[in-house]
């Protein structure tokens, strides 16, 4: 009798507020893959502890463990998770180039929404929010214009680019409805995804819930400091 081998487990480590984590977790839910989701306790700096660093030397999340294979970087994790999915396999070198072009630009453009706008909001740096918003308007306008003429970031179909793009832009409304208001095509795009794309509503709701928890903890800490 052949001993039944234990299926190597696939685990995604991330956090519901971390945009690249959200991209990967949403993809797991969307594609209905058997991946365990583990939320990093950032308050306890779990990602800086030896057990995590041993597997993921950069101490960053999202991070994927697949059997004994350890992978970081959202772009790599998404491609790895999507590797056998024909829906996400570019059909020619042109489509592949468009996807890689988006992936390349994402870091220098869309990521600024998080670093320059959303992060100050989360840290309570109120005076950085407006200047941050000013600095991201151009990129938002570009994508808003793009989504006026096509349903998804790269054209007619959902691609991995949408999975990276969305968690950057949907944060705007969490900071305040007025920030997303001017971008009607992005708004209707998000509405369509909420309605039509598996896993997205859950991805957004978990984020807003986690933001609430973090902000409540900040408020408690501030109150304690004021009382001292």
């Amino acid at each position, binding site marked *: 009798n052949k001993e039944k081998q234990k299926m190597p487990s696939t685990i995604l480590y991330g956090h519901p507020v971390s945009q690249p984590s959200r991209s990967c977790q949403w993809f797991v839910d969307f594609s209905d893959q058997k991946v365990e989701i583990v939320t990093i306790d950032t308050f306890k700096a779990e990602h800086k502890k030896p057990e995590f660093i041993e597997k993921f030397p950069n101490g960053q999340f999202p991070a994927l463990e697949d059997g004994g294979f350890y992978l970081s970087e959202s772009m*790599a994790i998404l491609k790895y998770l999507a590797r056998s999915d024909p829906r996400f396999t570019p059909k020619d070198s042109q489509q592949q180039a468009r996807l890689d072009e988006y992936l390349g630009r994402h870091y220098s453009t869309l990521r600024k929404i998080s670093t320059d706008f959303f992060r100050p909001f989360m840290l309570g740096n109120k005076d950085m929010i407006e200047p941050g918003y000013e600095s991201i308007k151009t990129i938002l306008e570009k994508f808003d214009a793009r989504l006026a003429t096509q349903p998804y970031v790269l054209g007619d179909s959902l691609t991995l680019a949408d999975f990276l793009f969305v968690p950057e832009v949907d944060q705007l409304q969490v900071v305040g409805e007025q920030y997303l208001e001017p971008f009607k095509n992005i708004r209707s795009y998000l509405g369509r995804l909420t309605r039509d794309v598996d896993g997205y509503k859950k991805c957004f709701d978990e984020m807003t819930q986690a933001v609430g928890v973090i902000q409540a903890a900040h408020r408690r800490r501030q109150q304690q400091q004021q009382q001292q």
Partner: protein
Amino acid sequence: MPILHGHPISQPCRSIQWFIDYSGVECEVKIVDLMSGGHKAPEFIAKFPNAQVPAFEDGDLCFGESIAILQYLADGNDIVPTDKKGKARLQEYFGRHLSQVRKFSTEIIRHVFFEKDADEKKKKIAAGIESTKAMMDSFEAHFEKNKFVLGDTLSLADFMFAPEVDQLFMVEYDFKTYKNVGAYIERLKEVKGYTKMREDMSEALKVMTAKMAAKQ
């Protein structure tokens, strides 16, 4: 024939030019006169709305971003991994490159060209060297046991990585302390096209420095 629009002063352009020379892939290279705003000219923007180099065209297909161009040109070359883990490791490096390794350029080298005040330049370069130290330390440790960025074999990761670190001679970077990274750069001289890439860059730097001095 496809065309790469670029300039040897730009690290991602060098990555691609080096790959073209290494692989012998058919691709014409056109130098964009960045100092005269060639990348902002209407004809350029019409094809490449982001007004950046490197920019690439193959027939009607026009796109930018070095990792996209490099992978497009490398399609079919033996250097491209075919197994799932090899592919993942390469993509992982690209992600790290875009979010971290690029800082050698954006936090150190950019000040060489864009900071006019000599004291400010010194300060900013020092600050950039400090902020990228942990990353350099990790690569130093990596090259203790590995010949190349992804292990024992040259990969596309090296084409992206090398132009970011080898340019640090411009700021008299302490390669004595980082002897493993230094040894890695030396090792690359055995790779086809690498020395030419370095020479093209030195030449371009000389020209740019002279032009900048003439402007003052």
